[in-house]
């Protein structure tokens, strides 16, 4: 049967059916869209939650890397210090933090362990001009990226976060500078232009009877007009002790170098001396401790300095001339043989109260005055003329800075290298004794003909003449003089061609001679060499590049972390937790006040703290039970190899390494104030001269009551020595043999293999968050 609709019937039904169909389609579409919204929302929420979770996870991994990477026993330690390359790291060190696990539990996120850690790139760090890095060390300091991949499952999806963290591997100490026990690159400015007299602030240590009395005699002061030393004030010298360990004593590499600059100026240090040290210190003498510990520095002068002396023999204690009572005036020196068995007696004298003609004993009751030896007026040497002008009292003041320490019992001196044009100033007195008829001084005379030797007629019949053994010997080789007695301008001549009459403080042990050492002779134990002036090296290492997109190649490019305050740094270093972890090179917006650090070496992570502002340091004793009030050298006869100071050094020699050595740098030349009596294993650097004139850069607080013990190095532009010696003078000496603070170098600073620290930076790079279905290999981004 065929259904036949009325032409007008059923049309509406069809329309209605059509409409309902459209409506159904719309309902389905709308509902689908709603589901889509909900899914989108859910996915967005999950992604955000997981993103923060994975970032927390990556942060936890990074923190644990930081905690382990500088621990010598950890797996990570060697991995970072090995050759660069894309390699996977072992992750055994990683244990998720409790807080991370709790967060995962709360969020119902499944933490996937272990994370993947890979070195993604590394390149070697460069050096500023002048730093010559040894080939075998190149590439050890590097920067690179460490890739961390963290994964987690959440609501059936797998999420992965890949981030890269920059890292650097840097030396824990400052190359070149760390080999110096003392580095003062502008100390010449502390001597004024005259290099002697009132503006000479280096030669200010009163010397009398082989000692440095804390207070200068008023008589000496009265003959030294306007000297920087204040009447009634106490002063103690800055004595750089020679290494107490025998191996280090004999090693130029390990004994702690000294640089006094700048390279184009000369520094004159008056050697302390007196007439008695030889007789007192002679083997078998029954001298007492006081003489043995003489501060006299004539041991720094060797016979070859006199040019005509017998270099095969040591100096002896020789009678040189007589006083009116017929007694000989004796001093260190040699009888120099002339032709016909004649003798020229050459004595050497250091600066001391005894030689001041007005008050001393050398010229007392003699027929001679200093001018009989050193001449006068324009005939005298430049410094002698000045000294006569300022007053003979200046002859009683020797250098307040002793670069080689005190006279060692074993003779000779430490093989410490002194860089810079550092010259020792002392006196040579020559007296010619013909066989009869008395003798006569050989007066200083630069202009005299070199062959014009004195002659003497005795009783009108016998004529003696002064005839040197060798024809090549000149009058000037024998004459009395002030050694290093005139201003030598290093700009006008090379240090290799130092004119006669000067004595460099540095000894070239290879050539058995005194020789000025400049940067060309510098070679560190780790192989670093200097290809530029030492003062330039100090400057360029800490230079900060002005251009925004550039970084200086020294410390600036090695900074691992920046702290906006001293407190922030101390917190990160872990002071509250009984740690002090620098572990690299960090920048601190100062001021920085370091509290007393009694923390043991194992809890100290060595490194360089660059401080933009003043620094104050309390004692750093590293857990050693040290009472500096009891600090002493050994007994007379074996001062350096025995005693509490030696015992202490023996202990710390191996226990303190570069891994725990601390360097504090005042970046802008702000003062570093030391408020504690003991600083052990510390280098202090202040090389950004603010005033272009001497000022306090590294100073000791007036609150220090016990003996100062400093083991490490100091690098600065100026010492401002008078102030330092005054500071030292406020403390009573703990040792009867060393009336001065204990300044010692630590040989770990000159280790053959520099210690490296790894620094992880927190600024993420290469951030990539991916999500995919669980079990699906290809992730959808």
């Amino acid at each position, binding site marked *: 049967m065929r259904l036949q609709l009325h032409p007008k019937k059923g049309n509406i039904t069809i329309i209605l059916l059509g409409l*309902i169909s459209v409506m159904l389609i719309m309902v389905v579409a709308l509902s689908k869209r709603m589901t889509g919204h909900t899914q989108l*929302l859910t996915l967005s929420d999950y992604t955000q939650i997981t993103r923060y979770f994975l970032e*927390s996870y990556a942060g936890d991994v990074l923190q644990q890397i930081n905690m382990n990477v500088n621990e010598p026993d950890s797996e990570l330690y060697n991995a970072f210090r090995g050759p660069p390359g894309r390699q996977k790291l072992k992750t055994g060190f990683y244990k998720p933090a409790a*807080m991370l696990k709790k967060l995962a539990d709360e969020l119902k996120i499944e933490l996937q362990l272990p994370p993947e850690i890979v070195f993604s790139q590394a390149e070697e760090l460069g050096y500023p001009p002048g730093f010559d890095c040894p080939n075998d060390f190149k590439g050890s300091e590097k920067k690179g990226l460490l890739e961390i991949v963290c994964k987690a499952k959440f609501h059936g999806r797998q999420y992965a976060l890949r981030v890269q963290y920059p890292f650097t591997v840097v030396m824990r100490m400052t190359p070149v500078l760390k080999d110096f026990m003392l580095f003062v690159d502008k100390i010449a400015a502390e001597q004024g232009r005259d290099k002697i007299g009132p503006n000479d602030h280096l030669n200010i240590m009163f010397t009398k009877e082989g000692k440095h009395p804390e207070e200068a005699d008023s008589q000496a002061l009265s003959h030294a007009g306007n000297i920087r030393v204040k009447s009634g004030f106490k002063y103690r010298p800055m004595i750089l002790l020679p290494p107490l360990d025998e191996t280090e004593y004999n090693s130029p590499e390990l004994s702690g170098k000294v640089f006094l600059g700048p390279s184009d100026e000369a520094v004159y240090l008056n050697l302390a001396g007196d007439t008695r040290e030889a007789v007192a210190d002679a083997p078998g003498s029954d001298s007492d401790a006081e003489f043995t510990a003489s501060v006299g520095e004539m041991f720094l002068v060797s016979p070859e300095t006199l040019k005509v002396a017998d270099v095969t023999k040591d100096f002896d204690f020789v009678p040189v001339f007589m006083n009116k009572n017929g007694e000989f005036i004796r001093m260190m020196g040699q009888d120099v043989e002339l032709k016909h068995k004649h003798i020229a007696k050459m004595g050497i004298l250091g600066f001391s109260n005894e030689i001041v003609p007005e008050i001393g004993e050398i010229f007392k009751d003699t027929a001679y005055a200093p001018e009989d030896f050193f001449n006068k007026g324009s005939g005298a040497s430049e410094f002698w003329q000045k000294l006569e002008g300022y007053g003979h009292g200046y002859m009683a003041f020797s250098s307040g800075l002793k670069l080689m320490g005190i006279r060692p019992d074993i003779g000779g001196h430490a093989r410490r290298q002194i860089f810079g044009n550092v010259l020792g100033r002392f006196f040579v007195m020559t007296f010619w004794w013909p066989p009869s008829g008395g003798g006569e001084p050989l007066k200083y005379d630069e202009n005299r003909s070199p062959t014009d030797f004195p002659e003497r007629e005795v009783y009108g019949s016998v004529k003696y003449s002064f005839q040197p053994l060798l024809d090549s010997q000149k009058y000037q080789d024998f004459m009395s003089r002030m050694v290093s007695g005139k201003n030598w301008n290093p700009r006008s001549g090379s240090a290799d061609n130092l004119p006669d009459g000067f004595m460099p403080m540095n000894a070239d042990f290879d050539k058995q001679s005194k020789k000025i050492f400049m940067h060309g002779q510098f070679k560190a134990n780790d192989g670093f060499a200097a290809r530029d002036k030492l003062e330039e090296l100090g400057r360029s290492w800490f230079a900060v590049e002005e251009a925004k997109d550039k970084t200086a190649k020294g410390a600036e490019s090695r900074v691992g972390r920046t702290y906006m305050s001293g407190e922030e740094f101390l917190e990160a270093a*872990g002071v509250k937790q009984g740690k002090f972890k620098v572990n690299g090179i960090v920048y601190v917006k100062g001021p920085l006040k370091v509290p007393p650090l009694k923390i043991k070496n194992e809890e100290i992570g060595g490194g360089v703290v660059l401080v933009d502002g003043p620094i104050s340091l309390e004692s750093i004793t590293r857990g050693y039970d040290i009472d500096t009030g009891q600090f002493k050298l050994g007994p007379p006869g074996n001062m350096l190899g025995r005693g509490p100071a030696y015992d202490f050094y023996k202990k710390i020699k191996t226990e303190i390494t570069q891994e725990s050595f601390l360097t504090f740098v005042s970046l802008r030349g702000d003062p570093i104030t030391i408020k504690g009596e003991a600083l052990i294993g510390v280098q202090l650097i202040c090389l950004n001269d603010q005033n272009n004139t001497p000022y306090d850069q590294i100073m000791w607080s007036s609150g220090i009551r016990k003996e100062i013990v400093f083991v490490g190095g100091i690098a600065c532009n100026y010492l401002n020595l008078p102030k330092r010696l005054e500071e030292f003078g406020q403390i009573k000496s703990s040792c009867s043999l060393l009336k001065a603070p204990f300044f010692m170098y630590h040989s770990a600073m000159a280790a053959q293999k520099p210690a490296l620290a790894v620094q992880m930076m927190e600024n993420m790079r290469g951030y990539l968050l991916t999500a995919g279905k669980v079990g699906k290999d290809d992730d959808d981004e």
Partner: protein
Amino acid sequence: MIELLIGVTIFGLAMLPLMWLGTTQTRGAYSVGKHMMAGQIAASFLDSLLGLPYKECLEKIKKLSGRGKMKVLDDEDLKKTLNSLQEDGIKKDMETSFRYFRYQFGYSQDEPARILRLDLEVFYRVEESDEKTEQSVKLSVLKFGERNG
């Protein structure tokens, strides 16, 4: 005629759920927008805290969490951002949109390990006039203090 009447009635009745669906859809879309905004606000607040040094972050979170539930518009950083906007229209729109948004911080700390947990919940109303329709987005993250070893 009766057919037409029945047809219109059926159509009308059929339209009712459709209209309800449409309204729900619009409200849902609006709600999704708000949810997303709340998520963005939460993320930006957390990111700004994560960008601070650890100590500052700790001090700030202590202060913020002590304040309890706060209006998003009272947040100092957001205020600064809104004040810096040149276009008044955008500023007004933002102020209108975030009118009923609130946030609450929480934190916990593992002091020796220098780990700080930041919790943030941002609240919004699905229906602005109805407080009972308040929903929230909650995010948590760990911040690690610098430890040099």
